[in-house]
């Protein structure tokens, strides 16, 4: 009994194993594998077009042709539809944010159904994202890029997803906004959220990430923890990214 409890405590929240995905005839992911423990923030990084965003989309069930295993809280989800995966407590913040132009900020925020117990109230959302409160009646796409990113993250937090898949949150944003998003992600980590981040901005990701997985040609080629990382690790990471 004690052993079973301990095993459950140690079991990863998300376990991706030998994940393959195709866009039509094009084989994009070639056996991605990694685990994410509860409360951990991991970053998938790599150059453009190596399969980082596709990995998130495949986990979310948005790629039709995919094989391998995606286990979420001990349940296999590889054959589930994206709506059923979401309802198991996965929040997806897509690249380019996915803010709906025909919906107000309020409607964008309230759109996803509540899928988990971690649902944040409006007050909690406004504490984390004070800018949103005074823009609630604006059209979603009238917000600045940074505000749209915050709305996209706020949307999945309101839905209560304990696991958040976050695709390129700093893309195209000013440094001051990137700092705000970093501070917000650190708050989320303190609150116990589990986050899978796709990010090319290593400097930003380093401050919020527990573990990096480097992707090349649709597979994980290197991984290391940020805690206790040596200068040589950072140099290695930058070499992978060509920066």
């Amino acid at each position, binding site marked *: 009994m004690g052993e079973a409890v301990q095993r459950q405590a140690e079991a990863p929240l998300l376990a991706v194993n030998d994940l393959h995905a195709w866009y039509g005839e094009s084989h994009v992911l070639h056996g991605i594998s990694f685990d994410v423990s509860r409360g951990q923030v991991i970053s998938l990084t790599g150059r453009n077009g190596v399969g980082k965003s596709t990995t998130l989309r495949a986990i979310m069930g948005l790629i039709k042709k995919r094989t391998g295993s995606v286990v979420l809280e001990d349940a296999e989800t590889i054959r589930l539809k*994206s*709506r059923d995966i979401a309802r198991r407590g996965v929040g*997806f913040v*897509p690249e380019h944010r996915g803010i*709906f132009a*025909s919906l107000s900020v309020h*409607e964008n925020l309230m*759109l996803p*159904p509540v899928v988990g117990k971690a649902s944040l109230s409006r007050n909690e959302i406004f504490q984390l994202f004070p800018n949103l409160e005074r823009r609630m009646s604006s059209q979603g796409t009238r917000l600045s890029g940074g505000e749209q990113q915050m709305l996209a993250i706020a*949307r999945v937090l309101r839905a209560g997803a304990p696991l958040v898949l976050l695709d390129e949150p700093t893309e195209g944003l000013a440094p001051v906004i990137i700092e705000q998003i970093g501070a917000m992600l650190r708050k989320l980590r303190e609150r116990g959220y589990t986050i899978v981040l796709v990010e090319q901005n290593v400097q930003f990701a380093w401050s919020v990430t527990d573990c990096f997985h480097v992707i090349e040609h649709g597979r994980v080629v290197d991984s290391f923890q940020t805690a206790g990382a040596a200068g040589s690790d950072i140099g290695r990471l930058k070499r992978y990214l060509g920066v």
Partner: protein
Amino acid sequence: MGQLLLGLLNGAFYAMLSLGLAVIFGLLRVVNFAHGAQYMVGAFIAWMLLEFFGLSYWWALLLAPVITGVISIAIERTLIAPLAEADHLYGLLMTFGIAMVLQGGFQIAFGSAGIPYRVPPELAGGLRLSFMYLPNYRLWVLAASIAVCLIIWLMIEKTSLGAYLRAATEDPDLVGAFGVNVALLITVTYGLGAALAAFAGVLAAPIYAVNPLMGVELLIIAFAVVVVGGMGSILGAVVTGFMLGVIEALTKIFYPEAASMVIFIIMILVLMVRPYGLFGRQM
């Protein structure tokens, strides 16, 4: 002034049919060729309810849209949904086939001659205005269609179901990735669009004879309205429906020969100058 009122009346039918077409196109990306047949089925159900069950016009106004909606939901689930992954052209061809089968079936059963459907006694008579005699029934049709368009618009713009619908029109995959059952949303929308067509069919039954081909010409005009208004635009469909009805009526006064083609001339001009329609967003 009389022509203006008649134009508004025709515009009311254009608006109601175009509204359903626009909602269905927005979400399914399928041009629903069966829409005219669903309008005709609504009128026939009204006639059958009266003929076989003695149910009045008012019951028909309630039941015909419900029955047509349920039949259309079954059609969407069994015939249209399986084509969701294929090119939208296949959906268009399927709805075209459904329309042909429905029209053919009703022609075999009831012939092509129109079957009269009397105006409900509560709406008999009319108003004698200085410039025209306005039948009460036509006034009712105008009021009912404006009310229905307003209710549908409010439903789409002000409710959470409407928010899902608008969002799924933009990006159905992302809405699904939030945990929303988009397939169910599509089915319900198709059913509601068909019910709206049937409602218009019941309203039309006492004005035009109930006829298996009654939806054909109206459907072509409704397509033109949707194109001019902007594919998928709800507001565009309603405003353009009424506007084109009035323009058509006024053309009948000033240049009667062009009345039947003025809507299509406007459609061509709009496509040349603003291909995404007057109220549509550039894709």
